[in-house]
């Protein structure tokens, strides 16, 4: 029993079994959840606004000033509508699918460090945890598509299964290259490593922190990760599971009201998670771009959100002006382009680190 207790303590970094710490933990989790949901509401609005701006439209502008309350109005509308379950559907799986999507998307946030020490569970396999959870995201889609008992949803689910499994491979390799440089699977360590070593230190200008971040030395991996993240979250131009011109709405055809809202929520939370992961892996997490007073006065969490928003802005712009991929081109890009490049980069980065002795050694036990 002691060993299990010890293992749990070890996993969570601190004893969590006192009632006080337990309440503190729940309180922190609630705070993160509420902040995340409100943030998601505004990210959704931003997505629609950016899309509209690119097409010279106004976007949602009726509910509240500049449409600021549009997402909350949508929420009320979804919740008050009647959920319709098709007669031939597998009821349990049909209702379980959106739940799985939204719960998985939210649970991944437990290990994301928003600022130094601002993390629910600072586990030492954080990145692997996020990778595992995001690889489960496909189940919501497959279950929803199958349980609807209808052609279009099923086709959408099949497409999605193949697509997400394919792009997970290249995401995995990209993560491995970053891990090789850091030498730790802990997300906090990944950020600290980007503060303490890198190009800026090599050039003798350590205050130019943004040169330290991995986006520069690992630039090809940064690009591959960004594109794979688009594919992994079913964002345009890779939104084939719900391609409206071919499959009506893909795996979501038969869904309405609250279950539909949960699918959308899960999707957007997963997108924000991918933006956060890009920020942590390549853009230095919560660290300020220049390590000098006016920049360091701004708290780390603000920098984190700013960087996350920048990545999301790129996501939204891609959605607005890139046409949808054809399915065989999508598969070609994943398996014939990204996989060889990322595999080669893993070998190359490992060789460089081994021969030069670069890389972060602060995480060594």
């Amino acid at each position, binding site marked *: 029993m002691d*060993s299990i*207790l010890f293992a749990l303590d070890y996993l969570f970094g601190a004893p969590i079994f006192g009632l006080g710490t337990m309440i503190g933990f729940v309180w922190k989790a609630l705070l993160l959840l509420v902040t995340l949901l409100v943030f998601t509401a505004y990210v959704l609005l931003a997505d629609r606004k950016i899309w509209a701006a690119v097409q010279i439209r106004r976007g949602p502008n009726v509910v509240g000033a500049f449409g600021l309350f549009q997402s909350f109005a949508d929420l009320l509308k979804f919740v008050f509508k009647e959920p319709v379950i098709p007669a031939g559907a*597998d009821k349990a799986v049909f209702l379980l699918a959106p739940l799985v999507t939204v719960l998985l998307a939210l649970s991944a946030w437990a290990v994301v460090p928003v600022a130094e020490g601002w993390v629910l569970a600072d586990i030492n396999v954080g990145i692997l945890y996020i990778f595992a959870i995001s*690889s489960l995201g496909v189940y919501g889609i497959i279950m929803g598509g199958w349980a609807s008992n209808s052609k279009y949803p099923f086709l959408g689910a099949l497409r999605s299964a193949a697509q997400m499994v394919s792009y997970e491979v290249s995401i995995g390799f990209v993560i491995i290259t970053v891990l090789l440089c850091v030498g730790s*699977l802990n997300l906090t360590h990944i950020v600290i490593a980007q503060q303490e070593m890198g190009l800026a230190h090599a050039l003798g200008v350590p205050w130019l922190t943004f040169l330290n971040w991995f986006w520069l030395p690992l630039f090809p991996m940064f690009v591959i990760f960004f594109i794979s993240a688009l594919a992994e979250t079913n964002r345009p131009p890779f939104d084939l599971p719900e391609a409206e011109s071919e499959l009506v709405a893909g795996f979501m055809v038969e869904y309405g009201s609250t279950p539909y809202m949960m699918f959308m929520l899960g999707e957007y939370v997963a997108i924000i998670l991918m933006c956060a992961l890009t920020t942590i892996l390549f853009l230095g997490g919560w660290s300020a771009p220049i390590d000098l007073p006016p920049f360091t006065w701004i708290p780390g969490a603000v920098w984190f959100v700013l960087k996350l928003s920048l990545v999301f802005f790129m996501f939204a712009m891609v959605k607005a002006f890139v046409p949808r991929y054809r399915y065989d081109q999508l598969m070609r890009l994943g398996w014939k382009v990204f996989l060889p490049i990322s595999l080669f980069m893993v070998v190359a980065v490992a060789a460089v680190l081994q021969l030069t002795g670069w890389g972060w050694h602060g995480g060594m036990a």
Partner: protein
Amino acid sequence: MTLPLFFFYLFSTIVIASALMVIASRNPVHSVLFLILAFVNAAGIFMLAGAEFLALILIVVYVGAVAVLFLFVVMMLDVDFGELRRGMLQYMPVGALIGIILLLELLLVAGAAYLVPEAAGSGALPIDGGIENTRALGLVLYTRYIYLFQASGLILLVAMIGAIVLTLRHKPNVKRQDVAKQTARNKATGVEVVKVESGKGL
């Protein structure tokens, strides 16, 4: 009851219940979904035992990839559920035999120290608290067992190549897209400007 003990019983109860449902449920897709539930809870037990790397790898590899393909195939099968149920009693003795053998083996492993006193201490080693188990695994895998590790990788590679060789067929009459050829097209090779005199056509 302490919290870890509570979680241990929770996870193991769900593993056993969902394992039963895998063979008992009427719908094969439900069976696969229960199998996935069993995997996830097994990962939970790994986590409790302090093997967090193995737990997450179990989820990434088995739940995230293998079970997805499994589900993929089962969903596309057109299975007659009645037919499936009829076979169950027929295969029951074989299944039970295999189950009993597995159970005996597991008991032998777990109870080795009681049967043969010399075997005590040769089983699973306790976790070394000072070292992350990702690092610990790496230290063993890439030093002591490096050749076996490489050999297993090669075996997997052979299996992969085998699968590709068995299934890859080049059909002669299918038009294939050559992306390099398409992107190499330019104005000179792609467009022909023809001067057409009015009223004559080409």
